[in-house]
């Protein structure tokens, strides 16, 4: 899933300064699941903004809505009535959500309330970690299902650097050295030969940015 994080209120306040009526839009998919932009977070941000504007003596009216997926044009179009009532939209979706809303409503300024961080998974309650770099050329078959591109601080393909420190990464001693994990996993599966192979430099053309995938329907 896509993992995002709320921007500091200070930044959001700056974006919407001067508007008297705004719409905050949540997204019901990834960012709800990572507690960043679901209906609850919309309500929290809305409450915070009301309190802040009250404190500063500003007038601010907020409409709230949370849609299934902000990255779908048809679903975003359903916001039309509400968008027409406001001067600006604050999106609590990922970057794709912000851009979809901005595209559907080109006359209305759309601002991001979140920082989209990475593709990842929950590690514990309220903790999400990056596990996929969306590099477009999946390498996991060679590394026992542990991605060195994301989980090695240097993204090395041919083994660890000299900074492995008792199985931890020298860059962040909290984090495991991905190559130690890969070694252990492949050893467990009797597949160390895979690790002994030399892998040439990555093909950065696997995704020509901006990425695009075209598929014929099966």
């Amino acid at each position, binding site marked *: 899933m896509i993992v995002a994080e709320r921007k500091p209120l200070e930044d959001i306040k700056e974006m919407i300064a001067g508007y008297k009526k705004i719409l905050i839009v949540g997204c019901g998919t990834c960012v709800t699941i990572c507690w960043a932009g679901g209906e*609850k977070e919309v309500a929290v941000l809305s409450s915070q903004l009301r*309190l802040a504007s*009250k404190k500063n003596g500003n007038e601010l009216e907020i409409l709230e809505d949370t849609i299934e997926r902000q990255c779908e044009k048809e679903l975003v179009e359903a916001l039309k009535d509400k968008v027409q009532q406001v001067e600006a939209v604050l999106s609590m979706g990922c970057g794709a959500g912000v851009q979809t809303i901005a595209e559907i409503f080109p006359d209305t300024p759309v601002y991001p309330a979140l920082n989209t961080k990475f593709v990842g998974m929950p590690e514990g309650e309220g903790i999400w970690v990056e596990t996929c770099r969306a590099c477009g050329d999946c390498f996991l078959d060679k590394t026992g299902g542990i991605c060195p591109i994301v989980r090695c601080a240097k993204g090395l393909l041919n083994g660890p650097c000299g900074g492995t420190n008792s199985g931890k990464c020298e860059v962040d001693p909290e984090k495991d050295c991905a190559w130690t994990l890969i070694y252990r996993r492949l050893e467990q599966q009797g597949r160390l030969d895979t690790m002994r192979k030399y892998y040439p430099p990555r093909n950065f053309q696997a995704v020509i940015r901006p990425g695009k995938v075209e598929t014929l329907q099966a």
Partner: protein
Amino acid sequence: MKAKEAFLPDIIAFCCAQSAYQAADTAGSMRIPYPENIRVIRVPCAGRVDVLHILRAFEKGADGVLVLGCHEEACRHLSGNIRAKNRVQKLNTLLQEVGIDGERVEIFTLAPNQGFRFARIANEINERIKELGPSPVK
């Protein structure tokens, strides 16, 4: 000074029915006085109290909010009190962002028989909020 004396803060106390609410009852039964401007809202567990409930309390004009739950390791719902503690911590940040002093929200733990403790907490927070003055978003 005079203004401070005249200021009677609105304080909301979310009280866990398993402990703090009963502690408030105990205070009453023992005729231990505490400020009458502390308004108790009974909840099934401190873990039921949502960040939103507290934010709304400030929107409605509260000057201070207490969350009162069970002592650690004595929560009937195991983690309810710990969750409440974490939420209050999160709330401190959310309120600071808005420009409301995080000290206006506090969590304490009590046992049902701690009437004196309830009254002491009520007095303490009342004094603290008086010191801080009315909520800036009132």
